[in-house]
């Protein structure tokens, strides 16, 4: 038995070094990015067609798990590029001092906000939103409205999920000092709090809740991939908090040229036009008119909310305490 394992291990080790002649670009990203139906395989094929290199994706849970993984590896990490840290994580990521400036021209970005960060390069983004079935009557139009209603929602735990943390930030950005009251009011609307996005969205689809915390782009999946127009995102008057997913290159990369090429490649039209219908997010550098058919049906928030990376990092712990205190009763 142990021999089998050793043999397997050796085979794997040999097969991963056999291609050492071609340069290898190692990209760490979150798990759903590299799934067969995610953007990973298409991006890999397209990049390898031009780079004379071997692009190797490694999946590591979600954005937060990705950052934890990088911190564990530290300066010895063999990764060249980290793909998928959002703006709630980039401050902590920058503090590791493992990243170098991306060196890309950000003029082509089509984000609804101006982009300042020269370490992390956005590649896609979305607005957090509560998604519901169109049969839901009296859809809440704000957090106070939701808190007063008897609409049942399912959310994610900010301690184990990036959208869960996004919701904390959304309430902070929209209501600041009143966040405590908002959460106290929401407590009786919350059916349950799940470890991650998948479980929450699954519960919603099972009919366990009227609304689920997800993205304004979620209805596009149902419409485009399933031909199902019955899902919608509820526009909130306070505005919607953004999640911007970024790519960054590591200082210790042994392929800095390739890494930089890859970052530039992430903003090309070919990659950007793959993202909407594989990652189901808005591309970061594609004009609105180039979005796939169906995206025009999505809501556009009246107001865009986003903390800069430093503010997000500073408000995270107090916001978590408010959340815990309000919901632990």
């Amino acid at each position, binding site marked *: 038995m142990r021999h089998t394992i050793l043999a397997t291990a050796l085979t794997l080790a040999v097969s991963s070094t056999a291609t050492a002649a071609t340069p290898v670009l190692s990209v760490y990203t979150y798990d759903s990015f590299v799934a067969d139906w995610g953007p990973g395989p298409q991006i890999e094929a397209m990049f390898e067609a031009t780079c004379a290199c071997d692009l190797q994706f490694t999946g590591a849970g979600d954005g937060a798990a990705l950052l934890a993984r990088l911190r564990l590896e530290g300066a010895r990490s063999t990764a060249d590029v980290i793909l998928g840290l959002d703006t709630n994580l980039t401050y902590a990521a920058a503090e590791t001092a493992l990243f170098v400036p991306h060196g890309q021209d950000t003029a082509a970005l089509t984000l609804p906000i101006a982009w300042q960060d020269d370490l992390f390069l956005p590649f896609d983004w979305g607005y957090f939103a509560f998604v519901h079935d169109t049969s839901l009557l009296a859809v809440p139009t704000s957090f106070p409205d939701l808190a007063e209603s008897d609409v049942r929602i399912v959310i994610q735990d900010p301690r184990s999920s990036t959208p869960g943390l996004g919701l904390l930030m959304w309430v902070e950005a929209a209501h600041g000092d009143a966040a405590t009251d908002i959460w106290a009011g929401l407590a009786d609307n919350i059916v349950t709090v799940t470890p991650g996005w998948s479980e929450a969205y699954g519960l919603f689809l099972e009919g*366990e809740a009227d609304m689920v915390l997800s993205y304004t782009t979620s209805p596009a999946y149902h419409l485009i991939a399933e031909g199902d127009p019955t899902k919608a995102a509820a526009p909130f008057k306070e505005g919607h908090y953004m999640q911007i997913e970024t790519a960054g290159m590591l200082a210790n990369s042994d392929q800095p040229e390739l890494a930089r090429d890859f970052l530039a490649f992430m903003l090309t039209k070919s990659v950007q036009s793959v993202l909407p219908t594989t990652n189901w997010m808005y591309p970061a550098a594609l004009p609105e008119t180039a979005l796939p058919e169906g995206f025009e049906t999505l809501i556009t928030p009246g107001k865009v909310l986003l903390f800069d990376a430093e503010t997000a990092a500073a408000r995270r712990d107090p916001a978590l305490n408010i959340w815990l205190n309000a919901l632990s009763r």
Partner: protein
Amino acid sequence: MAERAQPITALHVAGGAVAGLVALIMLGPLLAVALAGEGAGGVRPSDWAAIRFTVLQALLSALISTALAIPVARALARRSFAGRHVLITLMGAPFLLPVIVAVFGLLVVFGRSGWVSHGLGLVGLPPLDIYGVHGVVLAHVFFNLPLAVRLFLHGWQEIPGERMRLATALGFGLGDMRRHFEWPMLRRTAPGTVLVIFLICTTSFAVALILGGGPYATTVELAIYQAFRFDFDLSRAAQLGAIQVAICALATLAAGALVIRVPLGQGLDRPPVPWQAAQGPLTRASDAAALTATVLFLLLPLLALVGKGLPALWGLPESVWWAALRSLTLALCSTSLALAMALPMAALMARWPWPGLELTGMLSIAISPLVLGTGAFLILRPVANPVALALPITAVVNALMSLPFLLRILAPAYDQAERTQGRLADALGLRGAARLCHVILPRLSRQLGFGAGVAAALSMGDLGVIALFSSPAQGTLPLEMYRLMGSYRTDDAGGAALLLLVLSLVVFRVFDRGGARHAVA
């Protein structure tokens, strides 16, 4: 067996070596994580709340699962009916399922829009609210009742057929049966059963969170998640991991103190006889009721999973089928490894009932998978690429994860075999391999088959450490299912869950029946 000076053999030495290795593999990562951190702070008030909730829900789940299992196992032990074997296999399914799959199965039946709520709505009652401590306990009972039933069923089957014949001849009533057979058997089996379920529930994460209803239901495992992902405080993660191990140690010692090793008497391995005392209409009716209720509780959610998964099964992406093949191979590897570790350890435990051995065997369910995976990563990283080793590491970890169950299944039977046949074997001078092959293994065949089945199915269904470091081409079936769930593909995920359910049941059944067919009794 202190009173019988059985010589120490190579098998016992191997058992000691395995136990030492297991302790090292389990505690090494914990130490590695602790050393990578920057010194631990004290235990926070919120940690005490997490510990309280963890112990409370685990204790409730363990006691309720065990209490409910006793009448069900007894009914199965003293009745024979068509389809009994298939029923026993199917009833084991919830224990073998990945947590998230089972939770969704439960929700189709007991959720707010589930079948029960729907029925209540028809008569004008409000829907069932499954979210809260009761929901967590309900799910844990759903998972662990099957395990408890099987452990007790083995207990009943270990009562020698000769004794039952004698009891029949003497006209034993139900009360006599209880006093002379069932009570001693339960005193031997029940503490260990409560313990093993308690330990499984202490590391509960997803169930406690999804069904717990909110941060009130924070377990120690969730606190570890927070320490890792939210605070990146490795010392704190290791400290919480050590708290889990301490809870495990205390529980193991407590259960050890409650076990009374009453010999069940010796027999000549004749087949069991039907219980004369249990043929009254009242007993028949109560057995039927216990079985029907359990079957409905355990099988309705499975039926829901079948209903949801079947339409998507044929259209599953190709990667899912490859993942299934990978998972099957992985399951076979980790099962062989688990058996190779468990048998020597069981031999040593029969020879030398030291609580530390039991504890070592239990460690792998008490240790946080997140701490284990991260620690293994830290240890391996300087010498090898953990991503390239993801599948072998998963095989080893899965084997270790099933070790506690294998020991719980094998150790009492090993002990019983030594007690009943040991003296004869000694007199015949049977030692080493001959003793193992002619005396012990034939008596352990049922348990070996069942244990191998459990190990294989658990390995199939466990998400395991592969989630922590995997490359796209290495996904196992549970991981692939999570990936489907994580990208809106709920229907395909349902199909993958059904495939997983079917494959787990098939491997379990093959091993379990294989073992029972070779059983001498």
